[in-house]
C-alpha cells in the first residue's frame, strides 16, 4: 500500500503542490474569479458564469464559484493526507517535519482563497474527519487557523538547494502570514513579519518589473513564492492563463479585458523622463509608436481595431503569431514577491502612523517604475494610504489583488457608485455565496446571511 516510505510521502507532497495548478485555483478559470470582479477588469459577455460575477448578477448557482470552492478543498484533502500519513512513516525526521510544514503551507493557501472569496467555510484539518457533513467555520475561525498554520510553517528552511527550488520557504510563510494579518487589520504583527523579510537581505526588486511576468527570469531575487509552470506533455503543466486572456486574433479567448479606468490610472503620472509608467509598458501593448506584438507592428496586427489594448503581462507577445497560437505558456505565477512585501509593509506602517518607513518602501516601488520619489513630509497619512492603493492597483493589475483590496478596504460602494456598466454592486457581492450544490449535499451548512 501507499504511504509506506519517504519517497511516497514526497510524492504525496508533490501531488499537493500540483493541486495549486487546478483550473479554478492558480490557473485559467481561477484567475478569472480572482480578477473579474475588480474595477480594473471588464468581462466578455460570453459565459454567464464569468460575466455574472463581473456584473454582480451572480447567485449560488454560479459554477465558477462552486469549482473554486471544490478545487480549494481538493488541495486541502491532499495536504491533509500528507500530514496524517507522515506519522507512520519512518524517515529522516527533519525532512519529514519539513514535508508536514510544506503541506500545511499549501493547505493554508487554500484556506486563504476560501476566506477571501467565501468569507466562511468548513474547516477540515484531517483526511479522515469525524463527519463528512461539516458545519462552516466563522470568518474569524478561518483566519485564526490560517495565521496559526503560517506561523508554524515559518520554521521552514530559509532556502533549499537549487534542485528544490519551488518548495515553500520560511520567507514564503512569513509573507503570507503578514498578508493574513493585513486582511485582519493586525498592522503591527504584519510589520514585524515583513520587517524580518526585508532585514534578511535575501530579496530585492528586479530592475525590470517585466521580469516578474515572463518565463525568462523565474525564481529570481524578487520572488518569494512561485507556482511553477513548464512546457511538458504531462498533464496540467502549461499555464492556461495565456490562452484565456490572449486576443482572438491568435485564437485566444480574451475572456477579460482591462477597464478604461485602469488604463487611465496608469497614465495619471508620468515618469521622471516624461514617459509612461514603466509598468504600463510592461503590462499593456497598445497603439503607441513602435509598438509591436507577435513580431508584427501593432497597427498592422490590430488594423481593424487600432484602439485595442492587449495585455503584455503573462502573454507570449514576443513570439511569432504561429508560435504564440500554440498557447504554450510556461510563465510561472509569482504569487508572492518582494514588491508585495514592500507595499504591504508600507501599508501597515502607514496605518500605524509610521509615515517615514512607509514612504521609503513606496519609493522603492516608484523608482523601479521610473517615477519620482515621494519626499518625506510631503503627504498626510491619508494621502500615503491613497498612494499605496494607487500603486497596488498598478503593480498588481491582473495578479488577483485589486478586487480583494476593494473588499478589504470596504470601498466597493465608492468604486462602483459611478460605474454605469456595473450598477448592481451591493456589499453582499463582496463574497461569493456558498455554492447551491454544496448546500444541497450538506444540510449542516447554512447559507451566509447576506444571501
Amino acid at each position, binding site marked *: 500500500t501507499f504511504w509506506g516510505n519517504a519517497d511516497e510521502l514526497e510524492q504525496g507532497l508533490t501531488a499537493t503542490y500540483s493541486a495549486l495548478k487546478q483550473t479554478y485555483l492558480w490557473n485559467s478559470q481561477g484567475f478569472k474569479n480572482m480578477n473579474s470582479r475588480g474595477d480594473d477588469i471588464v468581462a466578455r*459577455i460570453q459565459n454567464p458564469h464569468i460575466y455574472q460575477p463581473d456584473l454582480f448578477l451572480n447567485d449560488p448557482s454560479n459554477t465558477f464559484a462552486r469549482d473554486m470552492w471544490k478545487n480549494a478543498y481538493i488541495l486541502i484533502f491532499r495536504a491533509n493526507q500528507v500530514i496524517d500519513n507522515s506519522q507512520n512513516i519512518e524517515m529522516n525526521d527533519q525532512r519529514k517535519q519539513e514535508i508536514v510544514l510544506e503541506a500545511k503551507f499549501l493547505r493554508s493557501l487554500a484556506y486563504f482563497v476560501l476566506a477571501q472569496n467565501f468569507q466562511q467555510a468548513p474547516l477540515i484539518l484531517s483526511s479522515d474527519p469525524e463527519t463528512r457533513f461539516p458545519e462552516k467555520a466563522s470568518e474569524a475561525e478561518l483566519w485564526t487557523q490560517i495565521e496559526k498554520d503560517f506561523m508554524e510553517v515559518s520554521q521552514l528552511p530559509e532556502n533549499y538547494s537549487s*534542485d528544490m527550488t519551488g518548495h515553500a520557504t520560511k520567507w514564503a510563510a512569513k509573507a503570507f502570514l503578514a498578508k493574513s494579518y493585513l486582511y485582519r487589520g493586525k498592522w503591527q504583527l504584519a510589520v514585524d513579519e515583513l520587517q524580518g523579510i526585508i532585514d534578511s537581505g535575501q530579496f530585492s526588486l528586479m530592475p525590470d518589473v517585466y521580469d516578474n511576468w515572463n518565463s525568462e527570469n523565474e525564481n529570481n531575487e524578487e520572488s518569494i513564492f512561485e507556482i511553477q509552470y513548464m512546457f511538458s506533455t504531462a498533464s496540467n*503543466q502549461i499555464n492556461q492563463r495565456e490562452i484565456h486572456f490572449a486576443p*482572438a486574433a491568435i485564437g485566444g479567448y480574451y475572456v477579460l479585458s482591462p477597464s478604461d479606468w485602469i488604463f487611465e490610472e496608469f497614465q495619471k503620472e508620468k515618469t521622471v523622463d516624461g514617459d509612461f509608467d514603466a509598468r504600463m509598458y510592461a503590462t499593456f501593448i497598445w497603439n503607441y509608436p513602435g509598438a509591436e506584438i507577435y513580431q508584427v507592428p501593432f497597427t498592422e496586427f490590430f488594423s481593424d481595431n487600432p484602439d485595442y489594448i492587449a495585455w503584455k503581462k503573462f502573454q507570449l507577445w514576443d513570439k511569432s503569431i504561429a508560435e504564440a497560437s500554440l498557447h504554450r505558456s510556461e510563465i510561472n505565477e509569482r504569487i508572492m514577491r518582494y514588491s508585495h512585501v514592500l507595499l504591504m509593509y508600507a501599508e501597515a506602517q502607514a496605518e500605524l502612523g509610521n509615515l517615514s518607513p512607509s514612504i521609503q518602501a513606496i519609493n522603492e516601488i516608484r523608482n523601479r517604475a521610473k517615477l519620482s520619489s515621494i519626499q518625506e513630509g510631503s503627504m498626510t497619512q491619508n494621502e500615503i494610504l491613497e498612494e499605496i492603493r494607487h500603486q497596488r492597483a498598478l503593480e498588481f493589475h491582473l495578479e488577483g489583488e485589486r478586487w480583494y483590496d476593494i473588499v478589504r478596504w470596504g470601498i466597493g460602494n465608492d468604486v462602483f457608485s459611478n460605474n454605469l456598466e456595473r450598477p448592481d454592486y451591493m456589499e453582499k457581492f463582496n463574497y461569493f455565496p456558498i455554492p447551491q450544490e454544496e448546500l444541497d449535499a450538506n444540510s449542516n451548512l447554512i447559507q451566509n446571511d447576506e444571501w
Partner: protein
Amino acid sequence: KGVAQNADVVINTNKTLSIKQVFQLINKQTDYKFIYRHDLIKSAPDIHLEKGVIKAYELLDKCLTPINFTYEFTDKGTIVVMEKQITNSLQSIEALQFQVSGKVTDMDGEMLPGANIVEKGTANGVTVDFDGNFVIDVADENAILVVSYIGFATKEVAVNGQINITITLAESASALDEIVVVGYGTVKRSDLTGAVSSIKQDKIEKVASGNVGSAIQGQMAGVQVTSNSGKPGEGVDVKIRGTSSLGSNDPLYIIDGIPSNINNISPNDVESIEVLKDGASAAIYGSRAANGVVLITTKRAREGKFRLDVNGYYGLGSIGKNISVMNAEQHVRTMNQAYINDGLQPFYENSPESYGVGTNWSEEFYSVAPMANLNLNYSGGSKNAKVNSSIDYFNQDGIALNTGFERLSARINSEFTKGKFTFNENLSAYLSQTNNESQSSVKRTLEMPTTVPVYNENNLGGYGGTYGDMFDIFSPIAAQNLFTNNTKNDFIRANFTVNYEAIEKLNIKLNTGGTLNNGYNFNHAQRYDVGTLKSPLNSISENRSRNISWIVEGTADYEWKIEKQTFNFLLGVSSQKESYRNTSGSGSGLPDGIFVLGASTQDMSVSGTEWNHTLASQFGRIHYNYDERYLLSATVRRDGSSRFAEKNKWAVFPSLAMAWRISNESFFSESSVINDFKLRASYGELGNQEIGNYAYSALINSSQHYPFGMDQSLDFGATQLNLASPNLKWESNISKDIGLDISMLRNTLSVTADYYESNSNDLLLRVPIPMSNGSAQFPYQNIGKIRNRGFEFAVNWNKEIGDLRMNLSTNLTTVNNKVIKLGTGDQIIMAGSPYHLAENTTLTKQGGEVGEFFLIKTDGVFQSQEEINNYTHIDESGITSLIQPNAVPGDIRFKDANNDGSITSGDRVYAGSAMPDFTYGFNFQLDWRKFDLYGFFNGSHGNKIFNGTAYAIEGLPNFTNMGTKLLDAWTPDNLSNVPRVSRLDPNGNNRSSSDRFLEDGSYLRLKELQLGYTVSTNKNDDTNTGIDHLRIYVSAQNLFTITNYSGYNPDIYSSSGLLNRGVDTGIYPYSKTFMLGVQISL
C-alpha cells in the same frame, strides 16, 4: 394412446372369432378394457384371423368398420366403442380413392417436414416427409385436409379436386407449444412460470436498422427502448421494467450463451430474442440480472435441403422535421434589440436589411442520405451434420454532413452429432465503422449565426466562423469538413459447446467461448482559422483498445418423470474474466494531408490504461410439473465478483415461481371461448454490480506531477484523489410478479398480463457528498431504495377471412417509480443540465421518482411596470418589498413558491416527470394473396422533456442565432407572452431552472410501414426460374410522428445517464426513410 393403438396382438393360430372374442383377445394382451353396448354390435360379422402379429388398431378397424362403428382409446386404459357419425357413414375403405400430393411450407416457403395432415373427420392422416412432400389418399375430391405443425396455426384446406396442393402455414404467435429460450435451457411456453417476452426473427427483420435494439423498440411489453439519437449506427438504451438502479440500468445481454453487447450483432442474424423480465426468470443470472436479461439466439443450422436466402434493400433518408431559426436580417434585428434592451451598444453596426437572408445552416448541413443492406444466408444439412452461414453488409450515410455507419458481419454456425455427442459452434465477426459528428454540430447548426458565411477563403481552412462577442462555436460545416472523428470496432464472438447425453434425459454440456473487441478511435483536425477559433497546427489522436472476455460454463440437466410428475434438474458452474487495455497517442504539427501519428512534430504524448474483472458462479434450478396443472420453478445462483472487497465478494440470489394451468383442471369445462388459462406468481432476488472496477479501493493516482528546481524538472507526484468506499456491496433487488396467460377463441386471441413490483436496495451511486471532503469524484455508496411497480399487457390476435390473413398485436407498459430512501434521508441529487454551464433541471429525492423535473414555475410575462410593482412580498415585520426588483416589463414573472420574497433556487417545485405514464406499441400484419402489409406504431404518454435546444436558441445563454419564436418577443409595441430579449438577462428569464422550456413529450410514431408483393413461390421447383421465392417490398420509416414536442425528436434518452433523462441536449435528429427491398430464396 399411440402406444396402445400400435400394440401388437399376437394371433397364434388361424381362427375365426366373434367380435366379443376379439375384444377379449385384445384385453388379455394389452390390459385395455372395452366399453360398448353389446346390443348394438351383436350384428357384427365374425372375423377370420391369420396366424401372425397384427396391430391393435388394425384388428379393431377390421371388426368395426363393416358395422360403421368406431372406437377411441382413452387415458384411463379403456377403449370406447361407438357408432360412427352419420356424416362419415358413406366412408369405407374402398371409398379412399382420391389421391392428393403436395408440399407444406411456412410463409417464407421453407419446407416443414414432420407436419401432420389429417383428412377432416377421419383418422386418416399422413406425416410430411423429410423433403416436405406428402401423399394422402382421401375419400373424394371434396375432402378437407387439416394441416398442423408445432408452432404454426392449424389450417384447413379444401381439396376441391386438386391433385397437387402447396399448403402454406402461418406461424402462430399464440401457440402454446412455442419453444421459449430461458437461461441455460428452453421451455415450452405453456410450461413457463415467469414473465418472459419473446420476439421472433420475422418481426425483427421487418424494421430496417443498423442494430438489434431499434428493431425491437415498442415490440414487447415491459421493454422500453429509446435511442440515443438518430445518428447512423447509434446504440439504444434498453430498460426492462423501469429503472431500478441509479447507476447502470442496462440489462444483461447474452448472445448464444456468451455475455455480449447488443450493438455488435447484425439484426439479420437473430433468430429470436427473449427478455427475462421478472426476478424468477432472471435470477439464474444472479448478480448481473437486476435490470433484466436479454437472451439473443442467432440463426441455427437447420436440417433439410440447402437453401440460400438473399435479402437486400436500398433506401433514402431525409430529415423528418425542421426547427425554424432566424435568417440573418431577423437575427441582426433581434440581437441588436437584446443589446439595446440592456443599455449596451448594438453588436451589429450595419442595418439589418443589409445582411439579407444569410446562411441557411440546416440546408447546408442536412441532405438526403442513402442506406443499403445486403444479406446472404445459406443453411442446410443432414440430421447429423448441418450448417448455417451468413454474410451481411450494411451502409448508412447520415443525413448530417459527413456522418455515417458501415457494418460488415459474417458468421457460421454448425452442428454435428456423433453418437451421444453433439458439437455446436458459432463463430462470428463483426466489423463496423462510424463517422461521428464533431463539435456538437447538430446543435451548432441551429446556434450558428446566419450572418456568418459558410466559406471564407481568407481563413486558413477556408470556412467562415464566429467573431467578436459571438459565442465561440465552430461552423458545423467547417467542423464536419476539418475534423475527422471515426470509431471502428472489430468484434469477434466465438463459442463451442459439447453436449453429452450420458444416459437418456441426462445431458452434460460444456460451453466455452469468448469475445474479442478491438476498438479504435481516430481523430484528426486540420489546422484552421475559423473566426475566433484557431489552431495553427494539424493534430491527430488515436486510441486503440482491446477488450477480451472469456467464459467457461458446465451444466448438467436431467429430466425425471414419475407418473404425472416431471422434474427437470439443472446444475451449473461458470467462470468469467474480462480484461481491457488501451493505448492512445496524440501529436500535432503534422504536414498537411498526412494522417499518421509518426508524422507529428510536436506535443507527442502517449497514455494507456488497463483493468480486469472476474466473476465466478454456481447455480442450479428445479422445474417441477404436476400433470400439466401445477408448475413450480426454483433457482439459486451464487456469484463472486472482483469488484467488491473481500467481505462483500460473494452473494446468493434465489428465486421461486409457480404457475397453475387452470384450464387443465377437471372442473374447468372445455369451453369454446377459453382454450388455455394460466396463472403465474414469482419471486426473485437479483443483484447489480455495474459500478466499474476497483471502486471500493482507495486508488492512488500517479500523474500529479510538479516541477521543482531551477531547471524545472518534473517530480513524480501521487496521491489518493477520491474517497474510498471499502464497504461497498451488491445492489440487491427483490422482484415480485403475478401474471396470467389466456388463450381464447380457438387460440386465435392470446392475452398476457402482468403486475410487478421490484424493490432495489443498497443502490450504488456516486452520491454528491459535500465538496468540502475534497474528493475529486463523489465516491460510490450503497445509499437507498427504489421501488418500481407497474402493469404490462400484451395482446395478440390472428384471424383469417377468406384469403385475408390478419395478425394484430399490441402491448402497453406502465412504470411507477419511487425513491423510498436516499442517503441520509434529506439527501438530494440534482442533475440534468441542458446545456454547457446551465443550471440543473432534475432532482432525485426521497419520496419522489428518480430524476423528476424540479423547476421554478413561470407565471406569464409582466406587461407593465405596474404589474412588477404589484408583485410584492410582505415580511413578518410588515415591510413590503418587490419580489423581482430586477424585472422590467417584458420579463417573466416567476412564482415565489417558498414565499421568501425573492426568486431563488429555493422556489423550485415538482414540474413533471421524464417517465411516461405508459408506453405502447402496436403492429399489424395483413396478408392477402400475394400482398402483405405491415405497420408498426410506438408511442409514449405523459412524460415531459426539457428542451435544451430551445433553451440554446430562445434562452440566449450565449450570442447565437435564435429561434423564430423570439420574433414575437415582448416589446412595448408587442405585448406578447414571449419574454423580451435581453443580453445580460438581469431577471433570469433565460435560466434553465425554470419551466419555460419544459414541454410535453408524449408522442405516437409510425415507425414502420411496409408493403410487400410475393412474385413467386415455386418452392423446390427446379424446372422453372430456379428461384424458389421472390418477394419485393417498399417501406417507410418514421413516416410521421404525432407530438406537441417542438424539438427534433421526442424519443430521446440522454446518454449522459439516468438522472439526465428527458433532457434534450440537442441530439442527432431522426431521418424519415423510404426503402425498396427484395427477398430471394434459392
